C-alpha cells in the first residue's frame, strides 16, 4: 500500500484518536466511524457534491455539519476562508470561538467555528430594505454587493454575529511606497488578488467600490460549489470536523450526521432554522 493510500485510509482515524478521547470511554466517538475508515470523508463529500449538482438547484439543500469533538481550534478554516475569499482586514466569515473550561488542573478548551448559519428563516434578509441579501435558489443567504446600500441593518439583526462590514482596508495601506516596489495602500488593488465571490471578480478599487461599503458574510463558497469543489473551510479542516453536502440526498454523509441525536443548532429558540448543525 502506498503512503498516500495509507494516509487516506487512516488519517481520519488518527485525527479522531487525537481529538476524541471519548472513544476511550467506550462511547461512539467519531461520527460515521465506519464511513470514515473506508475513505477520507472529503472524497465521499466531493463525490456526493457532484451527485447533488446533477439535480436542479431548487432540489438541493446545502447544509454544513461541524463536529465540535473533532475541532482542535487550529483556525485553519478561518485562514482558508480569508485566503479563498481574499478577505480584507476587519472582515471575517468564519471565526473560531475559544473558551477555556474548568480550573487547573482540570482545564480544557472548547472551540466553536461559526460560519454563517444560512438560516431558513433568516432575520437578516427580512430587514434588508432593498433585498440586497436574500436566499438564492439553493437556499444559501447571499449578498448582492451592487445592491447593498450599507445600512448594516442585517448586522444588527443577525443573532450569530455572522456579518462584518467592509470598511475598505487593505493589508498594505500602512506600508511605505518605494519606486519599483509594489507597496503602499494605493497600489493594493493591483496585487491584492480580487475576490471571486459569487462568480465575479471583486477588485475593491478605491474606497467607494463594492464590496467596500457593503456588509459581507460566508456564502458556503458558492463559487467553488458550482465547480464541484467543497467549501474552503471544509477541505482545509485538518481534524475533518467540518462536513458539507446536500441534506436532500438521503444517502449523503451530512444527512447521516444530522439525523443523529447528538446534533444541535445554535439559538434554536429564535426560530431561525439554521442550516449549520453541530455534533456535540
Amino acid at each position, binding site marked *: 500500500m502506498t503512503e498516500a493510500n495509507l494516509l487516506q485510509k487512516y488519517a481520519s482515524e488518527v485525527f479522531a484518536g487525537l481529538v476524541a478521547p471519548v472513544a476511550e470511554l467506550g462511547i461512539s466517538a467519531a461520527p460515521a466511524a465506519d464511513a470514515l475508515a473506508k475513505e477520507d470523508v472529503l472524497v465521499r463529500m466531493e463525490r456526493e457534491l457532484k451527485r447533488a449538482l446533477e439535480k436542479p438547484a431548487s432540489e438541493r439543500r446545502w447544509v454544513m455539519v461541524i463536529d465540535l469533538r473533532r475541532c482542535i481550534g487550529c483556525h485553519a478554516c478561518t485562514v482558508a476562508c480569508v485566503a479563498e475569499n481574499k478577505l480584507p482586514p476587519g472582515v471575517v466569515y468564519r471565526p473560531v470561538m475559544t473558551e477555556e473550561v474548568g480550573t487547573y488542573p482540570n482545564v480544557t478548551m472548547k472551540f466553536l467555528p461559526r460560519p454563517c448559519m444560512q438560516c431558513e428563516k433568516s*432575520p437578516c434578509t*427580512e430587514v434588508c430594505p432593498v433585498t440586497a441579501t436574500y436566499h438564492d435558489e439553493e437556499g444559501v443567504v447571499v449578498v448582492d454587493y451592487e445592491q447593498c*446600500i450599507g445600512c448594516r441593518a442585517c448586522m444588527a439583526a443577525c443573532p450569530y454575529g455572522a456579518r*462584518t462590514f467592509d470598511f475598505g482596508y487593505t493589508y498594505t495601506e500602512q506600508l511605505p511606497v518605494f519606486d519599483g516596489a509594489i507597496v503602499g495602500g494605493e497600489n493594493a488593488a493591483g496585487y491584492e488578488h480580487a475576490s471571486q465571490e459569487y462568480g465575479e471578480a471583486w477588485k475593491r478599487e478605491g474606497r467607494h467600490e463594492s464590496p467596500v461599503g457593503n456588509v459581507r458574510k460566508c456564502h458556503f463558497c458558492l463559487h467553488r460549489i458550482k465547480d464541484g469543489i467543497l467549501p474552503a473551510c471544509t477541505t482545509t479542516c485538518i481534524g475533518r470536523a467540518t462536513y458539507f453536502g446536500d441534506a436532500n440526498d438521503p444517502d449523503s454523509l451530512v444527512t447521516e450526521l444530522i439525523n443523529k441525536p447528538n446534533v444541535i443548532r445554535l439559538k434554536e429558540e429564535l426560530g431561525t432554522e439554521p442550516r449549520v448543525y453541530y455534533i456535540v
Partner: protein
Amino acid sequence: MTKKISYAVGALALLFGLWGVYIRLFEGEQSANYGSYIGWGLWVAMYLFLAGLAAGAYMLAAFDYLFNVPQFKGTGKTMLWAALVTLPAGLASIGMDLGHMDRIWKVYLQPNFTSFLAIMVWGYTIFLILIAVSLYFAFTAPDKKVMKVVMWIGFVTAILVAGGVGFLLGGNAARLYWHVGLLPVQFPVFAIASGAALMLLIVGWFMPNLEEKQRGDLLWLLAIITIATSVAKLYFLVADYTQSLYGGATDNLIAVNYVLNGPHAFMFWGVQIVLGLLIPVLVLAQPKLAKNGFVAGLMGLFLLIGYAAARILIVVPGQVAEMMPGQAAAFHGPKLTLEYTPSLMEWSVTSAVMGFAILGILIGMDYLLGYLARFTEAKK
C-alpha cells in the same frame, strides 16, 4: 443676545462639521469608530433624536391647529418649520451612515417591504411631505377644513413614525436590550417630550414678540408637559432596567451594566439623568422660573442634550453584548471590537447636522416665515 450667540454656535458647528462631511464623503468610513460589532453609533442615535424631534414638533403644532389650545395660538407655523428642518437633518445623519449613500434611491424604486427600515424610509418621506403640505396650508388656509384634515393625518403619522423608530430597534429579536415591547411605546413619548423641550428653547429664547402673558402661560404649560413626560420616561427607564437586572439574562445584564457602570456611565448619570432630567424638572417645577424666558430656554437646551444622550444610550448598549461569546477575541482586525466612542470625524459630522438644524430653524423664524406670510398676504 441669546439669538446672536445661537447664530454663532450654529455657524461654528456647521463650519467645524464641514471637515467631517468632507472626510466622510471623500475618504469613506475608516475614520469612524463604529465597526462590525457595534455597527450603529452616533449618527444613528442622532437620526433617532432628530426624527423624534420632528415628530414632537409636529405634535405640538397640532396643539395650535387641531386642538386649539389657547396658549399655543400663533406658534404652529414655527413648530411646523422646526419639524421641516429637523427631519431632513435627521435623515442626513442616517444618510452619512450608509456605506453606499448613492444607492438610497433603491429604497424608493426597489424596496423590500418586509424590511421595517424600508417602511420607515417611506414613512418619513411621507411625513416630510405632510409637514411641507401642513406648512403650506398654515399660510394659505389655516382655518379651513383641509388644514384640519392634513394635520390629523400628519399627527397620526407623527405618532406612527415615532413609534416605528422604536420598532426598528425592538424588532431585532437577537438584541435583548432592544427587544422589549415598551420600546415602540416609549418613542412617541420621547418625541413629544423632545418637541416640548425644543419649544421651550424656541419660545424662551427666540420668540420675544409673543404677548407676555401668553408667553408665560405657554412656557408654564410646556414645563408641565416636560415634567409629565419626564416622569413617564423615568418610569419606563426604571421599569426596563430593573426588569432586565432582575431577570438576569446575560445580554441584558451586559447592556444595562454598560449604561450604569460602563465606560460612558457619565453620559447616563451626568448628562441624561442630572442635566437632562433632574435639573430641568426641579427648575421647571417653579412657576416663576418656568415663566422666565431665559431660564426656560436654558432648560430646553439641557433637556435636548439629555434626550440626545438618551438616544445614544439606547442605540449603543444594544450592541455591546457579543452575539456569540468569545467573538471579539476570536479574530482580530480593524473595527472588530466591542468598544465604541465616537471619533472626531463622527462628532464633526454630527456638528454639521446640528449646525444645519440650528441655523435652519433660526433663519426660517427670522426671515422665511415672515417673508412667506407677507407673500401669501400680498397674493390674497
